[in-house]
Each structure stands twice: as C-alpha cells, then as structure tokens.
C-alpha cells in the first residue's frame, strides 16, 4: 500500500530461508531436514487436536496435516501427482472444470495487467498487482459456496472476481473515487482492508455469529505473510480457537511484505504458527490451483462440521512489485524471479491441460479474447466511474447527520458557491 518515490540501486536480496520450492524436480531443494513438527504430519489424525477438550473435534481421517513440504497436486511440469490427502477432494475435477479455472486465472491476470497499465497512465493512484497469486486466490474462492463470507486484505482481486465484483468496482478505491468499491453483503466479501491484519478479527467475529445462529456459513480471513507478525492476527487465532469459530485463516505467503522477506517474519514455516494456538494447519503449494482448491475444500468441510478453525498457508510468490509505486529491483534479484516465473500458476495449469491432451491452443485463444474484452470493458468503466460531489464528504459519518456536520457542509457549499466562477481551493 505504500508509495516508493524513486528508483534506486539494486540490492542483493536476502536469503530466502525456509520456503523450499514446492517439490519441483528441476529446482534445487531448500532445506532437506524436516521440521520436528512434521512428525505430526505422519499420523492419521488432525494436525493439532486438543488432548483434553471435553468435546474433542471430530478427527477427520482425511486431514493428516502438512506443515513443512507444501502439498502439491500439479508438479511444475504439469504432471499430476498422487496426493493421498487431497485426491479425494478432486474427484469432481474434469476437463471443463480445469478449463474454467484456467479462464478465471487468465482473465483476472488480464484485468490485473490492465489495472497496472491504467495506473501508469495516471488513471489510478496506485495498484497492488496480484500476478503470480492467481492460483492461490482462484483455487480458494472457487472451492467455497457463495454463502461463505470473505474478509480480505487489498490484493485479493482474484477472490473478488469469483464473487462477481465488477472489475471497475475493484479499481474505484485505487482511483480514489470511493473508499469501498462494492456492497459487502451483496458480494459476501468485505471491501479491502488496508490496516494489516485487522480483518482477521472481523472474520472470527462474523464466524462466531454464524455459529451462534446455527448457520453453516463459514468466514474466511485472507492475509499475507507479513501480516503474521501483527498482534491482531495472533489474537484472532486465540479467539477462533477458544470459541471454536468456523473460520478459515488463509495466508498467502508470497515471500515478501513490501521489501521484507518472509524469513524476517518467521524463522520457521508460517504453517507452524497456528499449531501453537491449537489450530490445525496445512501448507499447500499456492501456485497449484488444484492443490489450493482441494485443501480449501478439505478445510472448509472440517470447519463446517463444527471442528473449529483451520489455517492454510499457500506458498506462492508475488511476481510483480508490491504496488505500482514499488521498485522490487532494490530488494530481490532476477535469478529468484526467474525461478518463480517458471512456477507460474497459469503456465502450470496450461502444461497440465496439454498433458491431458485438452485443446489448449483453443483455450489460450479464448482466454486471450476474454481477457482483452474484460480489459477493454474495464478501461471504459473506469473512465466512467462517477466522481463524488463535495457534499459526499459529509455523508455516512454517523447514521444520521448531526448539526455540527451540517454546519460544516453548509460552510463548504457556501465557499464553493462563492468561488464558483473564479476557481477552486488550492
């Protein structure tokens, strides 16, 4: 969310400590030694059950836990790998499903690119690109029914896309014409949260309210690797565990919080964090749309059954800058980037489709076309976004206007009127 004002010299990036590449035969492995906590991954029981809870969470036979090596279904070269835990959640995946996911990811990428272009052309103040995180966001959002409610950060436009948010609605906040682009209740998704981590509490509270009403809706808190350090996120885990709230914590570990590598936020995999709060956790390859989709289903089913909160860490990578104001060459190098470009989530699904013998060329053309159409429509819609009237400043401060504010509004109106022909405020 931050502006960086000038370009500068390239720094040598700090080491990427503990995120071994999702098992990629080509890529060098990070750390070989398994974390001790991985021991718990072995057994056929939930990742962190409470030994002494009077009414223990039902132990899901299909949730074995995985907190070190990310779970993967699609290898980088597009081959499908057997994954005992996730496979049962992928039985319904056919070519049509894969094509739909491919189109989702492609179109949101085209929209994201268009937003970057619009920012460069001065149509937006700022834009936080999601390039590289399409699988994490689409895999998550497409795995959940509409009634579930998202509380996200500012980069989850892939989620918004799945929720039917109009692309121009996504951009309006960044154009500065509004503070919220859409109706949270209509889309069952809160509008972007800028204060890092604050929304995690909201998700927990919402989930508690659903449970209290006996509804099966779950809430999803989306946040980044950097957010893991904020006190609010830890507190949200405390509340969720204590009240067994039906909430899914979804952390997109894209390896950076602006310039800070994830190793600064944690010396162990982020997926270990929730275990100490009594919340089971899975680490999943966030560039593998099928793995994310399957893990989300697994988690959601468990949560919906009344077993309490769960945590997913999607290991992914932000291929672009933090925002359009950022200059990532100052803190990471081309080699690292190249390694992750090779793991591009869209490329991976493309390779998989190719291996399956699906009509990929046709699909690519369709994706390009839909992407271009969406981008063109977005460009027009952004230009047409209404600029609020000055009086809108004073609306919705409270649910009713108080006299002090009415007075200020009248002052502004009078001033604008008095200046009307001459010019406007400096």
């Amino acid at each position: 969310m931050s502006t960086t004002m000038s370009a500068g010299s390239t720094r040598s990036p700090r080491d990427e400590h503990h995120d071994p590449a999702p098992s990629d035969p080509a890529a060098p492995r990070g750390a070989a030694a398994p974390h001790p906590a991985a021991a718990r991954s072995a057994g056929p029981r939930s990742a962190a059950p409470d030994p002494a809870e009077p009414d223990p969470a039902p132990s899901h036979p299909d949730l074995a836990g995985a907190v070190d090596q990310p779970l993967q279904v699609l290898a980088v070269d597009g081959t499908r790998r057997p994954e005992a835990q996730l496979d049962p959640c992928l039985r319904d995946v056919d070519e049509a499903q894969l094509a739909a996911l491919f189109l989702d990811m492609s179109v949101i990428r085209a929209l994201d690119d268009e937003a970057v272009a619009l920012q460069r052309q001065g149509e937006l103040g700022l834009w936080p690109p999601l390039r590289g995180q399409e699988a994490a966001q689409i895999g998550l959002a497409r795995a959940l029914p509409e009634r579930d409610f998202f509380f996200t950060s500012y980069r989850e436009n892939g989620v918004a896309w799945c929720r039917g948010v109009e692309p121009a609605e996504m951009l309006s906040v960044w154009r500065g014409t509004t503070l919220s682009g859409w109706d949270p209740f209509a889309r069952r998704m809160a509008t972007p949260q800028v204060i890092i981590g604050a929304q995690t509490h909201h998700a927990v509270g919402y989930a508690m309210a659903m449970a209290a009403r006996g509804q099966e809706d779950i809430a999803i808190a989306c946040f980044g690797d950097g957010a893991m350090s904020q006190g609010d996120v830890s507190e949200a885990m405390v509340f969720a565990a204590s009240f067994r709230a039906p909430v899914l914590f979804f952390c997109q570990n894209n390896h950076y919080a602006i310039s800070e590598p994830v190793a600064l936020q944690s010396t162990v995999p982020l997926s270990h964090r929730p275990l100490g709060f009594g919340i089971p956790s899975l680490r999943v390859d966030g560039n593998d749309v099928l793995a994310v989709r399957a893990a989300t289903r697994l988690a959601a089913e468990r949560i919906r059954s009344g077993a309490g909160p769960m945590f997913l860490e999607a290991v992914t990578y932000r291929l672009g800058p933090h925002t359009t104001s950022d200059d990532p060459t100052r803190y990471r190098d081309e080699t690292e980037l190249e390694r992750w470009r090779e793991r591009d989530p869209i490329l991976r699904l493309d390779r998989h489709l190719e291996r399956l013998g699906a009509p990929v060329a046709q699909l690519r053309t369709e994706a390009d076309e839909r992407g271009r159409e969406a981008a063109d429509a977005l460009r027009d819609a952004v230009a047409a976004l209404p600029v609020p009237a000055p009086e809108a400043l004073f609306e919705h401060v409270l649910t009713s206007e108080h006299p002090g504010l009415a007075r200020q509004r009248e002052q502004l109106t009078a001033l604008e009127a008095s200046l009307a022909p001459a010019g406007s405020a400096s």
Partner: protein
Amino acid sequence: MTTMTMAAALNAALADALAADEDVLLIGEDIGTLGGVFRITDGLQDRFGAERVIDAPLAESGIVGTSVGMAYAGRRPVCEIQFDGFVFPAFDQLVAQVARLHYRTGGRVRMPLVIRIPFGGGIGAVEHHSESPEAFFAHTPGLRVVTVADPQDACSTMRAAIACDDPVILLEPKRRYWGKGEVDTSLTADLDSARVLRRGRDATLVAYGPLVVTALEAAAAAEDDGIDLEVIDLRSLAPLDRDTVAASVRRTGRLVVAHEASGTVSLSSEVITCVIEDCFEHLEAAPERVTGYDVPYPPAALEDHHLPGIDRILDAVDRTLGRRSSREAA
C-alpha cells in the same frame, strides 16, 4: 421507580436489552462467571447464557475486533473494557475500524457497538486504573462519545446507546457506581443533548461524568457566597451539544469547564472554542478550564491534588467573575 445504585441501574439496562433483542450480546474480560470486576454484568451470564454474555480472552483488540465482525453479521455487541487504561490496545480497531466502517462502506455496514469503559479517578487505584481517555475518542469522527452522571441517566443512556445504530463509546464514572438514586428503567435518553441541571444567572459551569456531582456541589457552595451558577451536564461529548452551552453563556456571559482529563487538547479546549465561535460577543470574561494537570495520572496519594475539586472550580468561577483568585495571587 426504584432506588438503586448506578451499577444496578446499568445492570438493569443491560438485562432489559438482552431480553428484548436476541442480537444484543455482551463481551469482555471477566464479565461472565465473575459478573465483571465492578459487577455491572452480575448474573447476566446465568440468565442469558455464555453465548450472549461472553468471557473473552485477555485481549482488548480482539474484543473490539471480534465485535466488529459480529456487527457485520447483524449483532449488537456491548463490549466491556475492564478499566479506562486498558482501552489503548484496542485503539486501532476503534479508530481505524469501528469509527470508519460506516463511512468507508458508504453507509452499507453499520457498527451498532457499545464500548463500555469505566473511567476516571478518585478511587485510590494503581496506575492505568483512573484514566480519562475521552479526548482521544471525541477527536475521532465516526464515534459517539457519551458519559453518564447518575443512576437514572446511566440506565436511560445505556438503553439509548444499545438502541443506537452508531458506535458509542460509553464512559461510566467508576467512582459514582455506588451512588444511589431513583430510577425508572423504562426511560430512554436522548444521546444528542446536554442537560441543564441547575439554572443560574452568574456563570455557566459545564461538566460531565464524575464531575457532574462535584459541579452541583460547587454550585451549592457558591450559592452560600451569593453566586448563582448554571450547571450543564454535557453528557454527549461527541457530537457536542454546543447550542445548549451557547444558549446558557449568552445569558450568563461567563463559562467554566471542568473535567478530570488533562487540559491540553481536551474537551474543555473544544467547549471553550465552540463558545468563542458561537457567542464571542456575549462573553464578559475569558472562559476558564479546570482540569487534571498536564501530567500522567499520578499515584493515589496525589490524586486529590490532581483532580478538580470544589475549591478549584470555585476559584475559577471567582476569576471569571473578576473576584480575587489564587491564580492572581501566584
């Protein structure tokens, strides 16, 4: 009408709200089994269950933030912050979320939270148990900041705060919890208005919360000196009922504002500035403020010197009336 303490009046108002509306819930530290450290929620968990009267983990940001999420889902949480000094961990959720969500979402999301905070000093407590944080909240657009002064007022205001669709910071003067009064629990206050508690000619004395009782005592003492004070209980600190204050000052020409919080950038600065804006030409003397000094809340042994008492208030009244005062003596 029954005679009850302010604590009992608040308890009654909470109980009625819980009974009347399924969406109302209470959340805070030790409010359930224990009934709150001041017993304001005594018996309510037994009556309404642990899902309506929730003992929360020890984290104020969590209490407020969780309540925000509940409000998204249509509930009406009443949060207890155990003591004034413990509200700061929740500050971000209060000023960046609770206060703004209605504005941020163009009116789509409502935040009908009540944040109950026992506030103020005078009980001989250790650090962080005697604070007056109202200025922080009154400066924050999007919050209502309301104080109560006596049992009836406490009950009626609590009812109004819970019914209100805006977030309300409700400041309860802890040293007045055990004061008694007649209460009709069916009344509901008007959250927007100050109350003129005593009519007078010579000067307007504005107070709120714990100092309302002190102000009335000062007025009684002044009467013996032949000074006729008008006493206003501000009640709502944000939005401020500046019209009631201005109307009074137009008649008296003189103003004294008293509160426990430090004076710099405070409610008294604001009330005085409003009066200057509204009726400068009616002022016959410079308004005076009588406040806690610009120091952190001191150890209990010094709090009587720190807190505005009758003497300091009357000294300020003397100054506005042009009588010899200790300040000139200094």
